[in-house]
């Protein structure tokens, strides 16, 4: 699991150097309930990525800090994106779930999108990155 994230983080590093005409995306994660484990962000540039059919264009992992955390990247070209966030409290690299698959750890999506009978759709979570953009995302507890 951590290997996967290392790989995606590597991809992120490549992106940082490749895109010259990049825009600035600021992501503010609110409602971080504790400093246990890590905050994991996935930046998704297509519906296929959003649906898990292909790898995220970028991923960021940081030690959790209680309250508010801010992430900034200048590496992304203009376009449509969505963000998926989870608070991996026990640091196992996964969103732990209960016996029937309901998440036990906090999660959220860009636009604070929530789904009807499940996760939100790409249409609800996507946003345009053009110039500077800020996404304030509150984790669900």
């Amino acid at each position, binding site marked *: *699991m951590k290997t*996967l*994230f290392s790989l995606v983080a590597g991809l992120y590093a490549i992106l940082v150097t490749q895109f010259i005409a990049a825009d600035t995306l600021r992501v503010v994660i609110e409602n971080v309930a504790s400093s246990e484990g890590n905050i*994991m962000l*996935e930046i998704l540039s297509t519906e296929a990525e959003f*649906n*898990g059919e292909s*790898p*995220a264009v970028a991923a960021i992992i940081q030690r959790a800090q209680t309250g508010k955390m801010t992430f900034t990247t200048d590496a992304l070209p203009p376009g449509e994106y969505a963000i*998926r966030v*989870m608070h991996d409290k026990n640091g196992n*690299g*996964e*969103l*732990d*779930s*209960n*016996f*029937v*698959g*309901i*998440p*036990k750890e906090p*999660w959220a999506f860009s636009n*604070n999108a*929530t*789904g*009807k*009978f*499940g*996760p939100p759709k790409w249409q609800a979570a996507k946003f345009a990155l053009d110039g500077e953009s800020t996404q304030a995302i509150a984790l*669900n*507890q």
Partner: protein
Amino acid sequence: MTTRRLFLQSLAVAGAGLATRTSAAGDTGRGDWANQFAAAREQHPWLLGYQGIQEKSLSSRATLSGEWPADLTGTLFRNGPAQHEVAGFRYQHWFDGDGMLQAFRMQPDGVTHNAKLVATHKLLAEEKAGRALYPAFGSTPPQPAPVTSPDAVNVANISVLHHHNKLLALWEAGSPWEMNTKTLDTRGPYEFTADLPPNSLSGVPFSAHPRVEPDGTLWNFGYVSNAKLLVLWHINPAGRVVKMGRIPMDPITMVHDFIVTQNHIVVLVPPLHFEPAGDGLSFLDNHHWRPADATRVLVVEKDNFNNHFFLELPAQWVFHFGNGWEDKHGIIRFDGARAPDPSLMLTSFRDIMRGQISPARHAEHHQYRIDTKQRRVAEMPLFAQGLSAEFPSIDPRVSCRRNQRLLFMCRDMTAARQPAHTGLNAVATFDYASGQRHTYVYPDSQIPEEHLFVPHPASAPETRGWILGTALDWQQGRTLLNVFDGARVEEGPLATATLPYVVPLGLHGKFVGA
């Protein structure tokens, strides 16, 4: 499994069973539901039972009439949807309201009553916000807050369980809610102990109708709509999970009650399919009745949940079963209140919240037989056509074993004279061996609720005991608790404990002896 896939799979069921948008039922404005209900109450004063509670708690000593049996001591706990309006928003289905747990305590010096709204996460969040926030079973308030887990919208409003000295208020799509037995104060969501990682059972659906064997072994089920799963619970008398099961169920439907015998679990899966049909629909409205499809009959071995098979019956809707048992030849017998369709839930229990009386197909009691070796199922009516029946129950000491007697609420739809209200109006006992049925018909001014058989403490199973049940006297504006001689229900109540107020019509209860 990748993080991403896990993440998606987890979220796929996060909102299972929950709606997050507005209800489709809003052909009239939301404020209109309260206005329409108020206007209808002028015409139909018995609608008092569906008005809903304003108070968070009730407490009083009951006034006794008749002779209360000296040996009958203990507590009748009851639950039901009670708060039907939140900050001006009136719910659009009877099953939506916040649960209120009641305790009728019977002691040598009389009967006392107290009741409290279950302080669920949902109730507390809405009190803090000063408005209705969350989608309920059949309706959704304006600008609903996102639903992130089933327990965020758990209203703990259907039933109550007393097991391993815990008092639990039950919903059916999330965790049981633990209550203080003496004060009825809310302790919070309850997680059974298990050999699983922490919180693994938090929010896992636990139906409102667990079956408890005479030795205290508990069985239950739950359905997870979006994950298309049926969950099975096996819990020992000390409240520890022995095993859990997950059975894929596609299409997934709504299941309210089930049957447990000596060796098997039986679940009737009606063709009320969960087919999310787009935005703007409540959880209930995302279910679709498919009368051309079969009711699947799932038969599961208690010892090994992996061993199961399906049989088929014609489309039907059974809210409640009385009891099930199995003979040495592997023949299962059980009884249930069988309606041809769920129109009562889909239409009547919705419309009554705006005071509209909508006809529905009533349930008639049926007997079922499953041959587990030949894998065949059959059904037949227990009584003559036209006897509407519901809330079947038995002496709890023969639960999941052969029962001789049945207790149920009913209404003779063929009678020339019908009461003013639309509810059931009688309590009846039935003896399988003699075929005799005895009935007490309530006065028209009273709407009886579920009645239970309470064994005499020194009696053998299915012999001496009482029948205990509540009723709403809508003319007097009082809730009553009646006690009958279990062998002579037709003679009417031995005694009545009258409360100085109305408790909204509720659902299910349990008696706990002193």
